[in-house]
């Protein structure tokens, strides 16, 4: 073997050995994971921008499939007495209010609500340590309180007492929270909203439309008081919103829901969807007639009118809201008037949500409305009447404004369509509840009205629905019961 070969050989060996040895210490460090595409919680919540990002995150679950894109409405609408579905056993179980604790819809909804809550808790806990403009910081914390309160309000109404974490959860040791009785949940909601109304702005710049305002917090608080039958407080809070003069009834009922006019003067709080990037399923779900229907990508009749319901059987045709809210005939894409009963899903549709240029089902830009001014008026009417010995004139005036707008007559002049004077407290309340049932068709308020007035689920049972025996609330999801060590089967709601 010549020298060159020997040298080459030695060179190769020493090269590879030194490579190997050089790698060794470096490798030890390389077992620490290097992150590139996300941040770790320890490096965050330091700046004003971080604070803004944390608050956006608290709202974000609202736009998920399982919350406002469709599932919250699937749960709330199908269970009520106005909406039904003609197929699909999973949906029909909700329609019949005969679900098991492992049903996917309420489980997924529960999860999204607590996602909002944990992110709000994070904001409430972390933001005060960030050094930034103090007023802005307080306002951001106020938003978190609003989001937290709204979610607990939904939870307590659908499920009764629920686990109620109010601090950020970071590790497994903090995940097991016991069921808290309903009155404690309401206490927390009220406390949050009283804080929020102090710090939230009266109005928002255009770029922040959709974020909570003082009016949103106060309207929510009024509804919370109404639900807990704190009548005077409900009436007072609603009155505060009315007196703020920030909101008004639009003259035309349909235009409240027009997708070209979503930031209108009647809206107090809505969830924003642009359609193509993130859209709701509302237009396709509330229409019938498949692709013949020009008002959506395809009318899939997921929410059809229950033909045994009061709104289908007894709604006065002179009320403009009727045609804007339900139909059994529509003009198809060919321009012909056709009947929904000639379609494979032969059920009347709702016409409230329309998106004629929707690119696909699930891409409607319709913004689900949490509160609008009509709500404030009707909360005020009901609460003011309940708080008094008999319905006061202001209560009549509030409910009649809503009616007159529906009947397309001047808002401030008495009309033949007004609620008749001289009703008893009970009859007046019934009239307001019915008014709500007409005004808010498929706005996800009916089920909660039925629940708080004790009519649920008797009213759908009377329609012949195969209702689960003994159930009045939704079941705590099975996966929560199974995984929350602070809960036992005894915490499950009756009937499950």
């Amino acid at each position, binding site marked *: 073997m010549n020298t060159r*070969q020997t040298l*080459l*050989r030695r060179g190769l*060996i020493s090269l*590879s*050995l030194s*490579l*190997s040895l050089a790698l060794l210490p470096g*490798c*030890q460090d*390389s*077992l*620490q*994971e290097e992150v*590139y*595409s*996300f941040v*770790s*919680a320890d490096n*965050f919540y330091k700046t004003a921008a971080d604070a*803004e990002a944390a*608050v*956006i*995150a608290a*709202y*974000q679950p609202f*736009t998920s499939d399982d919350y406002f894109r469709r599932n919250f409405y699937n749960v709330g609408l199908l269970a009520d007495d106005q909406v039904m579905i*003609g*197929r699909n*056993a*999973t949906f029909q*179980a909700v329609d019949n209010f005969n679900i*098991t604790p492992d049903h*996917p819809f309420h489980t997924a909804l529960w*999860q999204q609500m*607590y996602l909002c809550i*944990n*992110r709000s*808790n*994070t904001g409430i806990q972390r933001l005060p340590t960030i050094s930034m403009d103090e007023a802005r910081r307080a306002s951001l914390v106020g938003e978190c309180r609003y989001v937290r309160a709204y979610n607990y309000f939904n939870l307590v109404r659908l499920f009764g007492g629920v*686990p109620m974490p109010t601090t950020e*959860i*970071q590790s*497994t040791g903090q*995940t097991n*929270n016991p069921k808290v009785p309903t009155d404690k949940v309401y206490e927390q909601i009220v406390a949050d909203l009283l804080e929020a109304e102090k710090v939230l702005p009266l109005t928002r710049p255009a770029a922040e439309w*959709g974020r909570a305002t003082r009016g949103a917090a106060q309207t929510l608080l009024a509804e919370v008081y109404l639900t807990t039958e704190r009548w005077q407080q409900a009436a007072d809070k609603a009155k505060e919103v009315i007196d703020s003069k920030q909101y008004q009834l639009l003259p035309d009922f349909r235009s409240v829901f027009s997708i070209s006019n979503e930031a209108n003067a009647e809206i107090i709080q809505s969830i924003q969807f*642009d359609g193509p*990037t*993130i859209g709701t399923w509302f237009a396709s779900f509330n229409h019938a007639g*498949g*692709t013949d229907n020009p008002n959506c990508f*395809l009318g899939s009749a997921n929410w059809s009118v229950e033909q045994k319901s009061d709104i289908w059987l007894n709604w006065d045709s002179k009320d403009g809201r009727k045609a804007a809210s339900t139909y059994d005939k529509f003009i198809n894409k060919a321009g012909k008037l056709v009947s929904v009963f000639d379609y494979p*899903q*032969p059920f009347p549709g709702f016409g409230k949500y329309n998106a004629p240029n929707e690119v696909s089902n699930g891409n409607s830009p319709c913004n689900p409305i949490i509160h609008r001014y009509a709500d404030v008026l009707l909360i005020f009417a009901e609460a003011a009447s309940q708080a008094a010995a008999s319905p006061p004139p202001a209560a009549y005036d509030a409910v009649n404004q809503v009616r007159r707008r529906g009947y397309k007559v001047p808002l401030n002049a008495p009309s033949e369509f007004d609620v008749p004077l001289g009703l008893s407290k009970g009859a007046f309340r019934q009239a307001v509840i019915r008014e709500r049932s007409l005004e808010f068709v498929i706005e996800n308020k009916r089920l909660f009205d039925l629940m708080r007035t004790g009519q649920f689920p008797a009213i759908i049972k009377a329609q012949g629905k*195969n209702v689960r025996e003994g159930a009045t609330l939704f079941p705590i999801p099975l*996966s929560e019961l*199974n*995984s929350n*060590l602070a809960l036992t089967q005894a915490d499950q709601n009756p009937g499950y």
Partner: protein
Amino acid sequence: MKRLYAYLALLITLCFSILNPVFGQQKVTGIVFSGTDNSPLPGASVVIKGSATGTTTDANGRFTLTASPTATLTVSFIGYQNTEVVLGNRTEISVTLAADDKSLNEVVVVGYGTQKRRDVTGSIASVSAQAIKEMPITSAEQGLQGRVAGVQVIQSNSAPGGAISIRVRGGNSVLGGNEPLYVIDGFPVYNSIGTNDGQSQPTNPLATINPNDIVSMEVLKDASATAIFGARGANGVVIITTRRGKAGPGTVDFEAYYGVQTVRRKLPLLNGSQYMDLANEKARNLGQTTLPFPDKSSWPVSTDWQEELFQAAPIQNYALSFSGGSETSRYAISGNWFDQQGIVIGSGFRRGSVRVNMDNTISRKLSLSTSITASRSINQQARTSINFGNGVVYNALISAPLAPVYNADGSYFRVNTIPATEPFGTNPLALAQEFSNQLVTNRILANTNLTYAFSPELALSVRLGIDYSSDRTDRYFSRKLPGSTGQASVFTGEGSTYLNENILTYKKQIGANHSLDATGGFTWQESVFSSLSASSQNFAVDLFGTDNLSAGNSPGLPGSGRSKNSLLSWLGRVNYGFKDRYLLTVSARTDGSSRFGSGNKWGFFPSAALAWRVSEEPFMKAVSWISDLKLRTSIGVTGNQEIGNYQSLNRLNTVTSIQGVTQAPVVGFAVTTMANPDLKWETTTQYDAGLDVSFLNSRVNLSLDYYVKNTTDLLAQVPVAISSGFSSILLNSGSIRNQGFDVSIDGTILNRRKLRWNAGLNLSTNQNRVQSVAVRGGQFFAPLITSPVDLPVNIIREGQPVSAFFGYVRDGLWGEDQGATSLMPNARAGEQRYKDLNGDGRITADDRTILGKPNPDLIYGLTSQLTYGPFDLNILFQGVQGAMVFNANNFTLSDVFARGNNQVADITDRWTTENRNVNAKYPRASSVSPLVSDRFFEDASYFRLRNIQLGYNLPVGSLGVKWLRSARVYVSGQNLLTVTRYTGFDPEVSSTAGSDLRKGVDIGAYPAAKMWTAGLRLGF
């Protein structure tokens, strides 16, 4: 294609520069005989030792070459022992080759080394190149199907280049990877089967490697064999070895085949007239006065959508390889072009690849072994999504058979405008032709291994390698798709894995009785992955596809990501043999992985095995009919680190929402995962007891293994209280047990002069059981199957197999309309009745029960090789028993028109007002959707003629064609016969792959093909 030719030309030039002709001094002639029957052996290789000079024997076993008198000739032939002959002054010689006792002396590739078959203590199965070449395959692991006991090959979809899952002795993992580790020429590669992306079924990363190059595949099954791979060994290891050059004259081989694939079967569905009758019947049942088809003659067209969608598709493959070299420098170089069109129009897979394997002896002590493969594959994926409604096959099944494909103006007919049809369907041809989804993958897998022998006993190997791949997916929804305004997206990804291994080996025979073989070393492997995506929609024209995103009016949010993981390991193994009959193997590996939590960075994986070669004992010498008998047992611990990157960290991710009057996207940051600093590998403890026995001079070989695998510390998304704002945390919790038998038997049934018949049978049982899950109720569900099912059909429940099926049980049809006191108060006469299993007097979700399982009890393969003179016939049967499939297609296709879609042909056996038969197979036509019941869970057992090949070896020697070494032509057929009761396209189906817990689900999956091919192989 052009580029490929250029590569090949370059390679050819390269080879000829390596060839080094040597000239001898005297002419030598000779003849080579077979030791088994003393007949002349054609095709045997005769090489002058230490040179590249040599020849092969002709049809009469004769050869001629020139050599110096001092030369030694090496004579070799497959199946015979190599024999060396010192030439001396002889010019005419005769050589008789003794038959190789193959099963014992063949070399088996094991982790970080090789062993003789007789010394192996673990459970290792081998598949030869010959077996792999018997049928056309896209990807190496397909060659394992039906050939190795204990290995289940799940062709999850039959799309060209589609994902294939391999389970060695059952699945161990619920959430982690279940695929075995592949070691390709020494480079460990995890074949990460993607999950369903909602557009197409997952693709197969291993399809980027040309299976023609493979010379053997070894499947390491028990812990004794796999523990040396530590945290990656739990799912078994498949070692792939490609062809390397041998010293001797240069050889050139050319292979080609061409075939045609057709859909194996079409589903029998209603024709146009029957469809209209059913639609009218449903309308009457619903009391509708206007019938959807009052006049059937106004719908004269009847379209068979399956006929429109499926095509006879060609498949072709060409491979050219060169090998040879001298004692000091050997090469094997190959190029391959593979092109498979899919039976669904618009789909297909193409691959071009080049491999260079070089072996160099630098000096007496130093040698270098290099393997480089480069490939480019192009996968045109059909839209066979698991999401109902947008899959192309699913739409071809459900679409009304009335619609023409095109309108008069050439646009696509909108199938959902047909009366009575549910509005969800899309024209299947539009989906096939106007949606394009192309994945291009470029991959280079290269490694070089430098070995320095300090002494004959002690050697050090240093391996350096890289696995680089870049891929790009282009997706375009054309404007011709209903509702589409043109939507383009591009995803690119780039991954690099670096490898360094440093292995010391020591082999020593001490005295007559002790043999020692020790291996130890340290290895490092690191992977970096980055991705980038962009999209745009609202195009004015379809002209650009994905080539001009800025032409779209609405750009989407761009995306990018980067991740990294590394693995650092120490390993060691000692094989000790006493008197050649008591064998002991002890191995251990310590793995440090970046994926593990800070509290659990290092894992230790030991194993031990004992084997007793009973046949070597003196008392067995008298038992002449047993030629070999070995008892084996092993125990060991292996891990599974396929838990994903960054799973132990507390992560904040971006979330997108909408705000503002203009409804603009806004980005927030939220904690999306809870930290788990204790996160670690999954641990599998495996016990194996086995027996290898050969009878009648190794004419019959039997191998039997029993194993139990207990996997603990199961990686699980353990549900935490959802009220915490998290739904789950990744924990090591829960356990699964797999146990079963692997049996394989092969033998030479006939061995005459011209007639030889070998046959083999392998079968394996596997029982898979969830021992514990980390949920209080002892069960949780797999994710939902999308609409119209809207429910999970798989459940993970203690005491049951993983992903067991779950649903209602049917109980005939209702004879009368039901009332308030009924189990189903709203049911009408003729509707489906279900069993009230919990006896509460109502049919609710509580009446669901376990209905079966997706994984088989038994898998088996049957092989036969029959040789008669120059002809041979190879057959492979293969099957599974005891598996079930959720036929989700039938959820729509047999809902008796509830959703207005086309129906299976036997829907005619239904309840009607004229024939009120409560025993009919199907209920009345109505709007009532079926529940997820036993009707949809079908027996997916099957027995299949996987492959049959008839070949003819031309007697090139007797033809006097000097330049031709060998020539073979063959015809073969795949999937020509399948016996099954499954009513869908094919029982071998899974719309999901990888770690998806939804298993055994058929939702518009790409159907299986039947294939005829003809091919030839030429050796020069």
